[in-house]
């Protein structure tokens, strides 16, 4: 067994390293990794083909969890693709921007709100592809620097990704595996995300307050933009928004035990395809089928790792290290998943950590067990912003393509500060929830840290020393 364990672990490490370095196509990597796992388990462990079918689609024992995830992603993708094709997201975004054009101070808030709302419904990549060009165009008209807005939006896309159980792939995988319902997820993670979103926007106002002034005459030019121009097909827009709305209502009102969200999403998608009279082949071809293939590959790799019992041992070890202290275990999950997803794609990280959490939380009460999964969802989604890697590379590319390149140093600085700030907020929150003494201590430490930073930043003596040092550096150059 140890030979196959060593091979599978090597495959996993090689794949995450190559994913991190962005040296090869992620679909190619995951399918190749899955194949190598297949050969290892088939020829060394003499396993049957049915094991791999179970890895990809799930088994009756786990309630076909992977199949539910794949169908849910497929169904939601069809609905979102048709909504996007009709111009729904661009139309809503522009209408909201123009609605607040008279109050330029609100621009940052409204752009942030649009970003989190869209990313709460559609995946982060599509959100960025819609919102960043729109932001650049708006700032081009307003003759202001788009950098603060773009960085803010890139950070907030990941917060929007924790609003609903369907907002991101990690959420879909987590809720599928843990049996957490749509409403339950929203109440326990969505609300925290909304709170954190408001606190983050506040932080961004403090950081960027000086670059938020907009010339009044440019606002009048912006008002000449017409949101209706964004609509490619009015009838399709009405039908797609209606179906999207109904699907959301059904997600909220029907318990997943009665009708699973994937069936609701797929039914909505099929109804929309029928009533839209759109070319089905074209719509399907526009969907990110590569994502589904990538996921299937990851399912096999994660299944193979689980087969070797490493994750169960790792989970046990973490459990022992935390001394059966639920707070330490939950905070460890939050920070480990956050730091790991900073450099590695959060999908394989989530898939691999789910069984580990399941081992850690054996014997925990049901609400604490779910809390561990919530912290995984938060860590895996929000940790993405620690570094300008992952989805954030796309943001940099779009900005650069539109001739408004972002300084990577600035992105790194702001991303790191805000993610650290957000995870600290969650740490304090969970502290108060599970051990109020720890909560108070964490809050005091956090406030002291903030005060020290403010004192350093605004202390005239330190600033003077810093300026002198900078000037010396310049002279040396």
């Amino acid at each position, binding site marked *: 067994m140890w030979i196959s364990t060593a091979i599978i672990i090597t495959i996993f490490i090689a794949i995450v390293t190559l994913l991190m370095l962005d040296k090869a196509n992620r679909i190619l990597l995951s399918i190749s990794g899955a194949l190598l796992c297949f050969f290892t388990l088939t020829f060394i462990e003499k396993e049957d083909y049915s094991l791999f079918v179970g890895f990809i689609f799930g088994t009756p024992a786990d309630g076909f969890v992977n199949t539910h995830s794949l169908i849910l992603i497929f169904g939601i993708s069809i609905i979102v693709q048709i909504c996007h094709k009709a111009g729904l997201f661009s139309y809503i975004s522009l209408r909201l921007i123009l609605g607040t054009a008279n109050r330029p101070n609100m621009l940052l808030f409204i752009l942030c709100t649009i970003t989190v709302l869209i990313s709460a419904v559609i995946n982060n990549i599509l959100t960025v592809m819609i919102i960043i060009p729109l932001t650049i165009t708006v700032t081009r008209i307003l003759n202001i620097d788009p950098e603060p807005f773009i960085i803010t939006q890139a950070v907030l896309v990941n917060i929007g990704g924790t609003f609903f159980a369907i907002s991101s792939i990690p959420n879909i995988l987590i809720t599928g595996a843990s049996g957490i319902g749509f409403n339950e997820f929203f109440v326990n993670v969505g609300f925290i995300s909304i709170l954190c979103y408001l606190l983050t926007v506040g932080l961004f106002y403090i950081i960027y307050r000086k670059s938020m002034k907009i010339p009044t005459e440019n606002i*009048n030019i912006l008002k*000449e933009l017409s949101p209706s121009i964004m609509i490619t097909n009015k009838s399709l827009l009405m039908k797609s928004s209606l179906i999207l709305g109904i699907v959301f209502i059904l997600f909220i009102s029907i318990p997943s035990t009665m009708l699973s969200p994937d069936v609701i999403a797929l039914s909505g998608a099929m109804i929309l395809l029928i009533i839209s009279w759109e070319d089905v082949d074209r719509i399907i071809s526009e969907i990110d089928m590569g994502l589904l293939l990538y996921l299937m590959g990851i399912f096999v790799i994660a299944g193979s790792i689980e087969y070797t019992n490493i994750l169960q041992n790792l989970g046990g070890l973490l459990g022992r290290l935390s001394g059966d202290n639920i707070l330490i275990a939950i905070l460890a999950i939050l920070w480990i998943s956050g730091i790991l997803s900073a450099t590695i794609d959060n999908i394989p990280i989530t898939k691999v950590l789910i069984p580990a959490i399941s081992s850690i939380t054996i014997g925990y009460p049901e609400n604490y067990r779910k809390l561990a999964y919530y912290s995984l969802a938060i860590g895996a989604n929000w940790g993405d912003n620690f570094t300008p890697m992952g989805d954030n590379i796309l943001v940099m590319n779009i900005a650069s393509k*539109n001739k408004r390149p972002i300084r990577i140093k600035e992105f790194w600085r702001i991303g790191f500060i805000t993610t650290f700030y957000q995870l600290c907020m969650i740490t304090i929150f969970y502290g108060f929830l599970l051990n109020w003494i720890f909560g108070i201590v964490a809050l005091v430490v956090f406030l002291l840290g903030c005060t020290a930073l403010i004192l350093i930043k605004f202390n005239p003596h330190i600033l003077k020393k810093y300026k002198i040092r900078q000037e010396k550096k310049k002279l040396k150059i």
Partner: protein
Amino acid sequence: MVMKILNKVKNELPGLIDYIMFYNTGIVFQSSFSEKANVPVICANLNEVINTFRQSLVCYGVSSTDYQKIIFESTTHIIIILKLGEDSNIALFFDNTQVDEVNIRPIQKYLNKLEDLIDMDKSELEYN
């Protein structure tokens, strides 16, 4: 403000039926098309035309792919796509049966004004 200038452009150019002002991001700023026309799709097609010509120049071995104008002429229509600012364009649709020759020199000052209004270069960004 922009609409006023566009009306002046329309008055200066006989035979001009419609115009569409758009960004390379695919966002339309203004257009004179009727409601029946699918403006976002027209904009996407025009962007594709610009990109196709750019790609052709890259294949031809030209390093700089900045364009100034693209002209398409059929028996009934003439379409001229003009580069406005750093990332914006204007497409003018003429009735070919009503014009002998299209001369855009009289509207150059309006085009410059439009560029200033809707699309400043990064170097001209006003840091407040």
